């Protein structure tokens, strides 16, 4: 059955043979183990709502065991005591193994998260290997500095691994987020306890298996699937975790920071929600701009924290743009993520699915005009039509809240100043896009928008070397780049007097 435009190619598992699920237990201290309670939870296929596998459910007591292993691996193990070059070799090997298992890993994310298999295969999983290689290459390039003392002092900084790091990652990019968190912390010499999202535990466990094969010592990487209020809370409030890094919703980020503050004051980095603006100016190529806007909201079903969910179009091209955007949205193909023709799979789970549909209702009630979409696709699984609202006011909830689905709010602006002001009218500040040919416009808007990444005439241009993170309630700290490494390092200043120095 072929995928239909805005229609749903019914679940057809013959499109791809789903590999048997090999790893469903907690990975602690180099071994797959049952949770202490023996509890399990189900991970669901979002195409059908059916169970893929039962997964060991880690809770506080399992986190305790994992932290103990990570602590021991950090305090007494070889990992932080190896040279960066030696750590790099093991990480490079791990990257090679991930490439060797590309198809199986891609299938795991596709089936677990409803992501497009053909995209995961060429984007997400290779990106994990690339990210590991990037940080492997950084492991022997962590430089402190020799400083100018105020008097006759010799002073320098040591960049030391921070210790045991707790990572809590989301379900929308299970592999990419795993790599973004684990690679720099391992390169720095830290040890890790990672909780994948309960919706998508499969690929993280497979990565852990490959890590062991590559030679990552036991205890250095621990993966504990489970739920936020139990396992996640245990990580963020643990007295023996030295740093916690979280990617997810703003609401949960707040809880994590609170738990860190009331436990051992561990430093926290947060990558949270967004309501990212895309500003399209009169001098833009309308057709290309419409493609970019559509991709910006529909990529990964809108389940991406940097989605361009607010599109501001300058009045001179607004009407033409709106027409093209709607045409293109109608041609967008929603279908089984294993069908290579599909451009959009199902939302990750029932909760998200219902939340998105309720926001669509809110949009209508608030008086926005529904230009296209607005309904589920088919009658099985969690597929939703690409949805576009016009006549959106800045204070409407669909223009303020993160919907995390294929729902775009289209707005009009007149001047650069007005565009900037509207774009910044958000509690979020994760990303922004600018479409213009004018260098002055591009530069002015780039500096004025309070967001962590600005894409000029492009969108979703991520790179291992490009730091990424939020302003305002989109969080703090950066993933990727050397910035992404520094948050896993402590800075120690060492000072000693010197005598008869010929220079100071």
């Amino acid at each position, binding site marked *: 059955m072929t995928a239909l435009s805005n229609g749903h190619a019914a679940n057809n598992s013959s499109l791809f043979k789903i590999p048997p699920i090999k790893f469903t237990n907690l990975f602690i201290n180099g071994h797959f183990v049952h949770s202490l309670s023996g509890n399990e939870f189900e991970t669901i296929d979002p195409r059908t709502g059916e169970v893929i596998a039962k997964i060991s459910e880690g809770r506080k007591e399992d986190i305790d065991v994992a932290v103990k292993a990570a602590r021991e691996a950090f305090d*007494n193990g*070889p990992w932080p*005591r*190896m*040279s960066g*070059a*030696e750590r*790099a*070799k093991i990480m*490079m090997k791990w990257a090679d193994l991930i490439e060797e298992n590309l198809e199986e890993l891609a299938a795991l994310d596709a089936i677990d998260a409803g992501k497009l298999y053909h995209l995961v295969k060429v984007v997400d999983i290779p990106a994990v290997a*690339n990210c590991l*290689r*990037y940080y*492997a*290459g*950084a*492991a*022997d*390039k962590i*430089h402190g500095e020799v400083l100018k003392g105020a008097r006759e002092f*010799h002073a320098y900084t040591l960049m030391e691994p921070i210790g045991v790091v707790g990572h809590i990652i989301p379900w929308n990019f299970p592999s990419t987020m795993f790599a973004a968190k684990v690679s720099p912390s391992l390169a720095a010499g830290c040890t890790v306890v990672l909780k994948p999202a309960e919706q998508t535990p499969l690929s993280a466990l497979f990565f852990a298996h490959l890590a062991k094969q590559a030679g990552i010592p036991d205890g250095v990487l621990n993966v504990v699937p489970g739920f936020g209020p139990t396992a996640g809370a245990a990580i963020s409030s643990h007295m023996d975790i030295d740093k916690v890094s979280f990617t997810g919703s703003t609401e949960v980020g707040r809880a994590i920071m609170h738990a860190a503050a009331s436990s051992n004051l561990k430093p926290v980095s947060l990558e949270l929600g967004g309501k990212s603006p895309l500003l399209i100016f009169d001098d833009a190529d309308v057709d290309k701009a419409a493609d970019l806007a559509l991709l910006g909201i529909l990529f990964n079903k809108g389940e991406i924290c940097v989605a361009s969910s607010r599109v501001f179009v300058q009045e001179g091209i607004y009407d033409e743009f709106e027409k093209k955007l709607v045409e293109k949205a109608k041609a967008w193909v929603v279908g089984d993520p294993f069908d290579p023709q599909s451009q959009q799979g199902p939302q990750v789970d029932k909760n998200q699915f219902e939340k998105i549909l309720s926001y669509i209702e809110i949009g209508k009630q608030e008086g926005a005009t529904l230009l296209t979409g607005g309904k589920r696709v088919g009658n099985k699984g969690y597929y939703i039509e690409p949805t576009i609202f016009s006549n959106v006011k800045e204070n409407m909830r669909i223009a303020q809240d993160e919907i995390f689905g294929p729902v775009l709010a289209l707005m009009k602006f007149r001047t650069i*100043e007005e565009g*900037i002001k509207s774009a910044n009218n958000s509690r979020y500040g994760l990303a922004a896009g600018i479409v213009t040919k004018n*260098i*002055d416009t591009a*530069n*002015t808007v780039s*500096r*004025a928008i309070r967001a962590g990444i600005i894409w000029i005439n492009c969108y979703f241009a991520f790179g*291992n*070397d490009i730091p990424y993170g939020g302003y305002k309630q989109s969080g703090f700290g950066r993933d990727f780049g*050397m910035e992404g490494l520094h948050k896993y390092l402590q800075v120690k200043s060492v000072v*000693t*007097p*010197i*005598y*008869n*120095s*010929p*220079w100071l």
Partner: protein
Amino acid sequence: MGEKGGKRESSLIALSLSSTTTTTTIPMIPMPYKGVDLFVLDVWNENGNLSGGKGYLGAGFSRYSTATALEEEPIKPAVQVEHTQLLIGGKFVDALSGKTFPTLDPRTGEVIAHVAEGHSEDVDRAVAAARKAFDQGPWPKMTAYERQRILLRAADLLEKHNDELAALETWDNGKPYEQSAQIEIPMLVRLFRYYAGWADKIHGMTVPADGQYHVQTLHEPIGVAGQIIPWNFPLLMFAWKVGPALACGNTIVLKTAEQTPLSALYAAKLFHEAGLPEGVLNVVSGFGPTAGAALASHMDVDKLAFTGSTDTGKVVLELAARSNLKPVTLELGGKSPFIVCEDADVDQAVELAHFALFFNQGQCCCAGSRTYVHERVYDEFVEKAKARALKRIVGDPFKSGIEQGPQIDSEQFEKILKYIRSGVQSGATLETGGDRLGSKGFYVQPTVFSNVEDGMLIAKEEIFGPVQSILKFKDLDEVIERANNTRYGLAAGVFTKNIDTANTLTRALRVGTVWVNCFDTFDAAIPFGGYKMSGQGREKGEYSLKNYLQVKAVVTPLKNPAWL
């Protein structure tokens, strides 16, 4: 035989500090290669006594025994010489003139192979290939990630061919095979992996100007790099030059030393197997006055890097100035002080000072060739340094357990013997050594002079051979002044347990590297280069990237910026 043939160490650091231990204690003495002391002990055990057998332990007072093994047939290297042509534009080609030159086995002076001899017209061809590969790509136009992957694949291939590369290196150069196989080739691999990691981390800056301007710096590859490397560490010098140049996206014309052309040709071929596009790395074997001069004065070469003697470095700099003003990096000679303070553990200091001078047959630009010893420990030091030199195992470098092979060629061999005669004539005390060893090849006895004065030729000039000069000093200020009283400034060794002494000496010595309680500790990440007439610029580490990058400032006005 203990650790012999065991795990290959990836760096000299790993030799000085055990890589597996969790309690790294310093100072420890780096060995020329793992388990060198074991080798000595094993020879003792095998022979039962000092003078027996065919060891080179010195038969009593008649130093270095009879060197009988040197009269034996040299061991046949386990490698074929496959590549003797020039490598231009991705292909092995003859020189346009059809000329070749012989490369010699320093153990015997006999011909290993006849190698195509590049001249000016061959350099022109190579530069044209490099120019095209730079201007048209794909190399500089690839993503840094792709360049990184090619360098990583090349490193894997070099690692795979460790033993062949090591055998070629030893055959052509005369250095101990175990040193080649267990230290130098693993270090070569390490260097390329290190630079692979830099490829995607070459960052320009955004710059805060005083005014409404948006300013960025772009770090661009400089273009076609000309590189001229010496014969003492042919492959390591290859890596120091080629690694950063390739990581930054440049193309290269490399001239190897005429004494040691073989290993670079083999390595460069592996780079092409790894996917390096043709024309990116061109290797021209040949001589300095012809091929080297053509490269240094070429109008289409954008950058020149040279490692070798100070005299040649001057010529290279002049040629660059007279032609197209290409920027030049120079790593030149040295007369590096090794300072043993009064609080030193004499046994350790002796071993380290011995290593600092004799490593690689004394053919290191950073050799610790002026051993300054505090007067309180001087006598004991001299006696023990002599004893250590007497124990040094010299012989066919392919033989297991050998510490020292032959010097590179007859010219160096004669030069060293001339310096030894000069030392004797100037009144220094010849404690041990002083002559050739055996009757064929270029073996020189490990030689120790004591009572050396600063004004003697052997204390002023670079000998580049196994000749240790021991000088006496009284206090710190004095030794600082004397150590700095040289036209060179490459490296220094400081041996003390006192942190204040270490810090004072470290800052006062005008040299590019100070090794405190270690020596010859090289790693890809540690920059290396000279003060004064030891050269300019730094190789290795992040600093080396600067040699192969242009900085372009990009400035544009800002309209109504939200902040400045």
